[in-house]
């Protein structure tokens, strides 16, 4: 059997690890460094079958396996192929106790927990179940041969044993240096180690010359040729050999324990032991992962980095492939020597092993993007779909200009199912809405609707929509598509909050909120906007001869579908939003297209809507507004009734944001969202607005208006000496500030 190393075949025998196969062929996969054969050190890392940072001592050799060394300097290159298609599955299991490591102490823990009737999961690295991290929960994530395993446990027991302390001394990057356990394992595998010299605890089952004394240095060129120790009399002694075995003590494999700080994680057996602390090294490579030498530690010490955590950050020692398994005892020893205090090991963080991208992404999904009930209809009509406002929506149906003129001169429909929708009822409904909205909700008559801004506690606009009054104590609310989820939380939070008594608490509420019922219907209801001067004709053909008047709403049957019909206008033309059960969206949509065929009906997408609404200078919250947008700055103070609680009906707190508005209104206006015009082409949205040589603001919305034959824009403009500039420059071209709306200034078409 053969594997391929650096392009040449290498024989191996059954039972060989990749490392054993390479060593048998006289190859050190990393070019040098003490090998541990326990998965603890970074000195046998290589790229195996395209996956880098593989511990070759832990992987069984297979015929045809392709192995390559990592570059001497720098990281291995990313794989050339599309490895991201290599999906790795993730699995979740739940238990009382997860035991990591099935050595003697781990087995004992497992047996004890099982006898106690607990649900036990065990993970053993040598069986291919490698725990790579502990997270909140606690959750133990393990890499297994079947994929990633997520173990949700009430308790984690770390029984991972202890690792051998590696040698840090001059020459420790040579080939031929082994820990005592590694020497034993490799000899047992039948690998000829040559003449072995043992420093410290000798390897079991290996004939070795004992070099009695403190390790001073290794000598050799590429491969170790001798080791020098200092005997008890202080004399250096040189021992020649072809391999050096070092047994310098043990330190706990407690990375996972240190990762689970504050969680139900404990260590048992050797993993719970105190670390042996080796003598402070005088020279040599301390951290071969980050290439940190003893000289580097000294430099950092002299610069004032005396805390272990800071040394780690300054040098990156302990952040590499082995996560401190080699360097940690030596850095502690170094700092204890210099500072006379033995510092606790540094914090460990997931992950303890390098993962492939597929392993890291196992079980992870992209954020889902909802689709309206009309999604298939749009795609059938050839719409270009895009993710807008958190939904898949039609950007256009192929010809934006045709869509535009259908709205302006004929009739068009648009899927507006994404709008936020909510029913609120109950004795406290009016009180709640009065406190949430800056409008006088009590003056909205039954069957009437009102456009409203929604302010946060700072008085900034964070959403807008409609309030439709259904009955004395029942309201239907709409919100923007992108803001509806937050708006739902907003309304529920305020409704459920402990409130002042003046907020109209129910007698039995125990001050736990207002007596209201809230039903979020955004995902349940479809909505189609019928718009254009011929929209009444289309509705008449659909059976609705007398639709509600402007800013009114009614329940009605349209094309056989029970709808809530809202008369409003965002496009600047007569518009009727038909809110209806989502399962009937497709039949309503198709029927409207059939009935409107003679009227030249065309559906329109977002691209057209943005043009239409900009001609009317309707603000889109989030596009035209910023995080500090007040009603005053967008010239919509008419929507904020600061006097609505003036004495008679409300609490001193008024509506949310009122106090902030009162306070900020005392400061001079500094900038405003204004209308701008210029000749084509339209500048990009976000383009800087200049007043002479001064920065004046930026364009928030920009389009060429087919109806007006020029570019219309909204943009933020600063006041200069208390005045808004009339003439500005955008993209090097002149632009004028004009009154808004740009189209149908009197609103005759919208209100027709």
């Amino acid at each position, binding site marked *: 059997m053969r594997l391929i190393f650096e392009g040449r075949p290498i024989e191996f025998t059954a039972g060989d690890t990749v490392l054993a196969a390479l060593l048998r062929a006289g190859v050190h996969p990393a070019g040098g460094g003490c090998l541990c054969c326990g998965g603890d050190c970074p000195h046998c890392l290589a790229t195996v079958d395209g996956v880098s940072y593989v511990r070759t001592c832990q992987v069984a050799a297979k015929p045809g396996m392709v192995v390559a060394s990592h570059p001497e300097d720098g990281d291995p290159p990313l794989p050339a192929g599309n490895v991201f298609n290599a999906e790795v599955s993730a699995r979740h299991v739940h238990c009382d106790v997860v035991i990591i490591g099935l050595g003697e102490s781990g087995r004992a823990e497992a047996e004890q927990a099982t006898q106690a009737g607990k649900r036990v999961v065990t993970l053993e690295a040598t069986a291919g179940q490698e725990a790579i991290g502990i997270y909140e929960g606690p959750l133990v994530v393990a890499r297994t041969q079947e994929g990633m395993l997520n173990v949700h446990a009430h308790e984690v027991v770390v029984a991972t044993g202890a690792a051998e302390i590696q040698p840090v001394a001059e020459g420790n990057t040579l080939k031929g240096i082994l820990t005592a356990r590694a020497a034993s394992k490799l000899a047992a595998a039948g690998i000829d180690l040559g003449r072995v010299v043992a420093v410290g605890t000798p390897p079991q089952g290996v004939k070795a010359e004992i070099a009695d004394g403190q390790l001073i240095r290794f000598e050799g060129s590429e491969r170790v040729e001798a080791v020098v120790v200092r005997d008890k009399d202080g004399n250096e002694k040189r021992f020649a050999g072809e391999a050096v075995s070092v047994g310098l003590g043990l330190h706990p494999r407690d990375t996972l324990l240190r990762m689970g700080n504050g969680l139900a994680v404990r260590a048992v057996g050797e993993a719970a032991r105190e670390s042996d602390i080796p003598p402070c090294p005088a020279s040599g490579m301390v951290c071969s992962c980050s290439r940190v030498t003893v000289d580097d530690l000294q430099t950092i010490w002299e610069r004032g980095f005396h805390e272990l955590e800071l040394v780690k950050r300054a040098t990156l020692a302990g952040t590499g492939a082995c996560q401190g398994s080699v360097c940690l005892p030596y850095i502690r020893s170094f700092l204890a020597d210099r500072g006379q205090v033995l510092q606790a090991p540094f914090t460990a963080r997931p992950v303890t092993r390098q993962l492939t991208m597929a392993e890291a992404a196992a079980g992870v999904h992209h954020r889902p993007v909802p689709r309206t009930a009309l999604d298939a209809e749009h795609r059938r009509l050839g719409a270009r779909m895009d993710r807008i406002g958190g939904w898949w929506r039609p950007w256009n149906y192929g010809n934006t200009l045709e869509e535009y003129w259908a709205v302006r001169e004929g009739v068009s429909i648009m899927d507006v199912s994404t709008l936020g929708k909510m029913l609120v009822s109950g004795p406290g409904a009016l009180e709640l809405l009065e406190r949430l909205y800056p409008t006088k909700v009590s003056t909205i008559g039954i069957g009437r609707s009102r456009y409203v801004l929604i302010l946060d506690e700072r008085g900034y606009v964070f959403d807008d929509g409609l309030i439709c009054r259904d009955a004395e104590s029942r309201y239907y609310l709409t919100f923007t598509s992108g803001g509806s989820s937050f708006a739902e939380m907003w309304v529920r939070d305020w409704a459920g909050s402990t409130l002042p008594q003046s907020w109209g608490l129910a007698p039995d509420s125990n001050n736990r909120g207002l007596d209201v*019922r809230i039903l979020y219907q955004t995902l349940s209801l479809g909505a189609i906007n019928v718009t254009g001067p011929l929209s009444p004709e289309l509705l008449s053909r659909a059976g609705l001869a007398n639709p509600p008047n402007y800013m009114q709403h009614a329940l009605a049957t349209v094309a056989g579908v029970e709808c809530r019909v809202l008369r409003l206008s965002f496009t600047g033309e007569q518009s009727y939003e038909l809110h209806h059960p989502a*399962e009937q969206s497709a039949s309503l949509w198709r029927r409207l297209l059939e009935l409107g065929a003679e009227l030249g009906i065309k559906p329109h997408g977002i691209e057209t809507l943005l043009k239409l609404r900009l001609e009317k200078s309707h603000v889109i919250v989030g596009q035209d507004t910023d995080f500090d947008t007040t009603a005053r700055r967008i010239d919509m103070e008419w929507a904020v009734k600061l006097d609505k609680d003036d004495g008679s009906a409300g609490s001193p707190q008024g509506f949310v944001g009122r106090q902030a508005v009162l306070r900020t209104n005392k400061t001079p206006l500094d900038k405003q969202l204004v209308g701008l015009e210029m000749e084509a082409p339209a500048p990009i949205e976000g383009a800087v607005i200049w007043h002479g040589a001064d920065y004046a603001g930026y364009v928030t919305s920009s389009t060429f208006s087919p109806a007006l034959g020029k570019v219309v824009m909204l943009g933020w403009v600063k006041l200069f000496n208390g005045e808004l500039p009339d003439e500005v420059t955008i993209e090097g071209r002149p632009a004028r500030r004009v009154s808004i709306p740009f189209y149908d200034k009197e609103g005759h078409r919208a209100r027709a």
Partner: protein
Amino acid sequence: MPALNRLPATRIVATPSALDAAIWPPDRLVFRLAADEVLVTPPAPEVSLNDPHALIVSDSGFAGLWLPMKEALAFLEHECEWELPHGRPAFAQGMVAGIAAKLWFEADRVLIIVPAPFAADFEERML
């Protein structure tokens, strides 16, 4: 390919005490989505509640799929991070495959419910 179909239902929001006291039609599945909210499927629009302000609406905003228990558990083992209820029948809610889902466990099958706008994404994630 698995297909989630819209779930015809009645959705009710009322005071918790009114919902606690309600008598539900025996041939319906009644899921308590929240202290003040119930989903009844198939629809039960004539439910009598001791709450004059209750909101009772027909609803098709959810989509559902019945799966045999073994198949469901195999799927949930990969896509559900939280521990499933052990009793039967049982109702549970939480993220499944990254999507807010509701699970109804019967003796030998499971009804998986997600908001209908997310059904397409959920179906893809079931593959």
